[in-house]
């Protein structure tokens, strides 16, 4: 068993806007590119060019369809990575103390030196947000780019997670949820930001902004335009009247 800190000074995390995410996978690959090079072991790709390619990713985009009665079916793109939960169930189950939550910012990390790859944390995570790297035998998960956000070798504007920096549609936001005036806190307040599976009691820090309501199969049913006339002669009358005013 590993202890969670009783509280954290900051609650760093992501807001992901499901109304804006087009499912392009830019965040998935940017994350892979940064993180295979940086924190801990590389993110391996087993059978990379073969019949069953299977690599480690810290962030994946899933696509779902949702269809309510009488409505057109909707396609929802759902990016998923570690939610850096306040009551992270992956930490207490760790037998070696490898999984931990940082006191200063709430980021949940794996200390790979201590990780023996038992996979208990992945079993405990209700979101499926951890992946055991098949080559290194250690557990991998989103680090919230802890090696970017404080990185003094990066320009200040780049001290954000790589998925946020790269997102073309601006659907990903990074900030401190402990600060009610932060950009992310305001977004959550304005747009009804949601916890993922709140019934699990994990208190996820990351929030999702729900898709705005969409038009149903009949569209928005705006009232039809008023005809000047059904006949071409009527149209020409309108034309003459209008031209006089120009």
């Amino acid at each position, binding site marked *: 068993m590993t202890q969670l800190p009783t509280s954290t000074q900051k609650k760093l995390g992501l807001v992901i806007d499901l109304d804006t995410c087009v499912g392009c996978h830019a965040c998935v690959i940017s994350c892979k590119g940064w993180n295979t090079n940086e924190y801990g072991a590389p993110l391996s790709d087993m059978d990379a060019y073969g019949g069953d390619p299977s690599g480690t990713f810290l962030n994946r985009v899933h696509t779902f369809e949702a269809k309510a009665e009488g409505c057109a079916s909707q396609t929802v793109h759902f990016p998923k990575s570690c939610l850096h939960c306040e009551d992270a169930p992956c930490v207490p189950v760790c037998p070696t103390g490898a999984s931990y939550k940082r006191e200063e910012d709430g980021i949940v990390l794996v200390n790979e030196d201590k990780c023996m790859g038992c996979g208990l944390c992945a079993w405990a995570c209700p979101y499926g947000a951890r992946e055991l790297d098949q080559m290194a035998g250690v557990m991998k998960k989103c680090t919230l780019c802890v090696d970017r956000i404080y990185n003094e070798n990066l320009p200040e504007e780049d001290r954000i997670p790589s998925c946020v920096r790269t997102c073309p549609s601006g659907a990903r936001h990074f900030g401190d949820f402990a600060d009610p005036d932060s950009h992310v806190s305001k977004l959550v307040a304005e747009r009804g930001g949601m916890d993922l599976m709140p019934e699990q009691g994990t208190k996820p820090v990351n929030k999702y902004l729900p898709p705005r309501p969409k038009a149903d199969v009949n*569209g928005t049913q705006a009232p039809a335009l008023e005809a000047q006339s059904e006949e071409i002669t009527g149209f020409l009358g309108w034309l003459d009247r209008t031209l006089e005013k120009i």
Partner: protein
Amino acid sequence: MTKHHQPQLDTSPVVSDEIRQTTCYMCACRCGINVHIKDGKVKYIEGNRDHPVNKGVLCAKGSAGVMQHYAPSRLRNPMKRVGERGEGKFEDISWEEAFDIAVGLLKPIREKDPKKLAFFTGRDQSQSMTGWWAQNYGTLNYAAHGGFCSVNMAAGGIYTMGGAFWEFGAPDWDRAKLFLIFGVAEDHDSNPIKMGLGKLKANGAKIIAVNPIRTGYNAIADEWVGITPGTDGLFILSLIHELLKAGKVDLNYLIRYTNMPFLVNQVEGSAEYGLFVRDAEGNQLVWDRATSKAVPYETRGTKPAMSGMVEVNGVQCRPAFELLAEKYLTDEYTPEAVEERCGISAARIRSIAADIARVAFDEEITLDIPWTDWKGEKHETMTGRPVAMHAMRGISAHSNGFQTARALHILQILIGSVEVPGGFRFKPPYPKSVEDHPKPHHDVTPGAPLNGPHLGYPRGPEDLCIDEDGKAKRIDKAFTWENPLSAHGMMHMVISNAHAGDPYKIDTLFMYMANMSWNSSMNTSQVMDMLRDKDEDGNYIIPNIIYSDAYSSEMVAFADLILPDTTYLERHDCISLLDRPICEADGLADSIRWPVVEPDRDVRGFQSVLIELGARLGLPAMVNEDGSAKFKDYADYIVNHERRPGVGPLAGWRGKDGKGKGRGEPNPKQLNKYIENGGFWHEQIKPENAFYKPWNKGYQEWAVERGIFDKESPYVFTVYQEIIQKFRLAAEGHGDIQPPEHLRAQVKMAMDPLPFWYEPFEQTLINKDEYPIHALTQRPMAMYHSWGTQNAWLRQIHGRNPLFISGELWAEHGFAEGDWAQVTSPNGTITVPVVLMEALNAKTVWTWNAIGKRKGAWALGEDAPETKEGFLLNHLISELLPAKKDGQRWSNSDPVTGQAAWFDLRVNIKRVGAPADLQTSPTFAPQASPVGKGPKDIAFGEEWK
């Protein structure tokens, strides 16, 4: 309980030794990238924040460029074929031998009959250079891949308003309040579209997506219109009907900026019927209501009539606008008349028309920016109609796509939303009138250059590339009566025409970056057979094939000589204003690629190879007077070539002092300047010049200063297109240049000066009950316009492609999870896995395109899912239509432009169980891999731990 313990972390690792900034080439978007170099190797790629295209963001392909650069499928040496075509057996050769072979083939052709070389490039981003090379060589048989990509979109836009969507312009993302997007899964402007959609969402704009398939951009739209494929034109014309009927058109805009007031000859049967009435100087005339006289349209202070028959110089004529109104106000285009065919209810069509009108006219934008028009009239403000639109292949890859693209532009123009705030905006060097575009050139002289650029925009039958007997001069039969306005050529017809020897046999097929033996051809299996086919003497019917590619693609296996290209990080390139530049609506820009790392293989950038080949062939523009090579390589050409005096491939830092913008003599330090500036050059357009560009005096003057034009070139939008009418008149028997009898009716039908809708050809020739279903493809965002399959990261996102089946069809056929389907078209049958998708037009099935691969290609294992569960729909599509009643098989393309009508495909489906081997069919014998197979497991980045 293990106590909370935090290890010491290095939160400030050094990322790399150096950042080198260049231009991405993972697709046609051409974003700026920061390539992080560690120990002299590529480590990490991110977007360049200063770059005008992507402003720091980067898509999945862009970030995965690392794996493209290291792909095991990279070719390593020049090679010559040793096995049979298609086997993939090669012998490595030296560059010297490769040049000897190429010169040995090409020199005699040039001296004897240059047209026997067909030079076609695929996803070439250097068309101004490859076209220049082909022109100097002297063959008329050159084009890139536009004919099977989206020429309908380009030609429809150029002929209507001097620019199209795509690279020609973009929505005003910052100001639009209503955005309609038609037939777009992904597009060239991939990151700007995503950034723009994000802005629209943040600004609370409404997005309406018209697409049979609800993925990606369509998924986030507020309103999804799951239209029946091929009916977009009908839907758009019905919207126009509603807007006209309600008087919701911008008459002031139409009078000032379009040819809608132009007087059109109404003397039926006359050789000028349907053409504009002109004065002795050739000016088009309008009827001035104030003076009741016909005056040239550019006359200041007139009040042009928009309706009414008048007589001018003894000719009965009417304003074009009246012809338009009459045409679209008929009952043919009422929402009720079109709803069933479009699969959109009449009420919904009315609702969308009302939305457009409301936003365009009730939510008008005014910018307090004074500007002056080309007639010298001053305007205190800029009025915007904040309805923006965008469209792509979904509307254009049909046999009615040209007129549909025109209809969509006309919808935008009628509400006054082109080149205004909140609407659609051109990107320099557009807007550019069709009259300022080149015409096609086709006069071949042995041993000499062609008489001008190959591709262009015909102004009438006299510009067709046909001989005195009306026979096609080009191998692809572009610019003939079958498809008079085929402005991008017709690459998809080259192999079948060359194989048939129709219009003639060729000697050498020379291709670059075009996977013609696989996903870039209609009916892939037949094309492979044509490439392999031999005559009675055992010689290949297409005698010689030279091919350049960076990767071991399917096409490599069919070539006789391989010229291995570099990856995009190892090469020079220029994304030129002479070509398809990277400008945005507010700025002029171009960019370069440069070798951020040197190749570790014996490969060379294709353009440098062309330059050297040109010098060895003694092509005039590529040698000095003493016969020595004029350019050392492509980089040398980029800096020193001048297309016109002072105007060259790159616009930035010209002149000896490096201060020239657009114009100036070559600057030997130009590439260094680009590199110092992050790989690009950009100049912001002043706000007073940023809108109304075709009519804005300030913009026009600036465009001349920058070398975009040599003289100011204002024009009005050609809503009514007289050029098209000229072809119709010919079909009606007027003029000396006449279509062949069998094409007369088609030319007359298709060449309508005002857009109309007609049923896609294929479905008029088949039994629709037998083939009741539409079958489409889309390219996924993570692989659009990309070479993604060999990319270890991207192939994990899209490594297999099921056929997606609508809910209705799923239920009707009793499909269950894990089933497969037999899909049959008039051209063949494929057997493929299926998946249910409800967010899909009820009569439609679709799949991701170009995921399926031939076994042995791309250095993949032979059990790769791309080769087993992946498949191509191409096997079901033919470049020819089913036989007509007279037994003739016509081209499966748009009758105006020749655009390949991929999306006209109709099929039937039959539920079948999964095959025991889970192998899609058809399947083909593996090709040998000249580069072996990729490594088993990889852990990229390990060397830097």
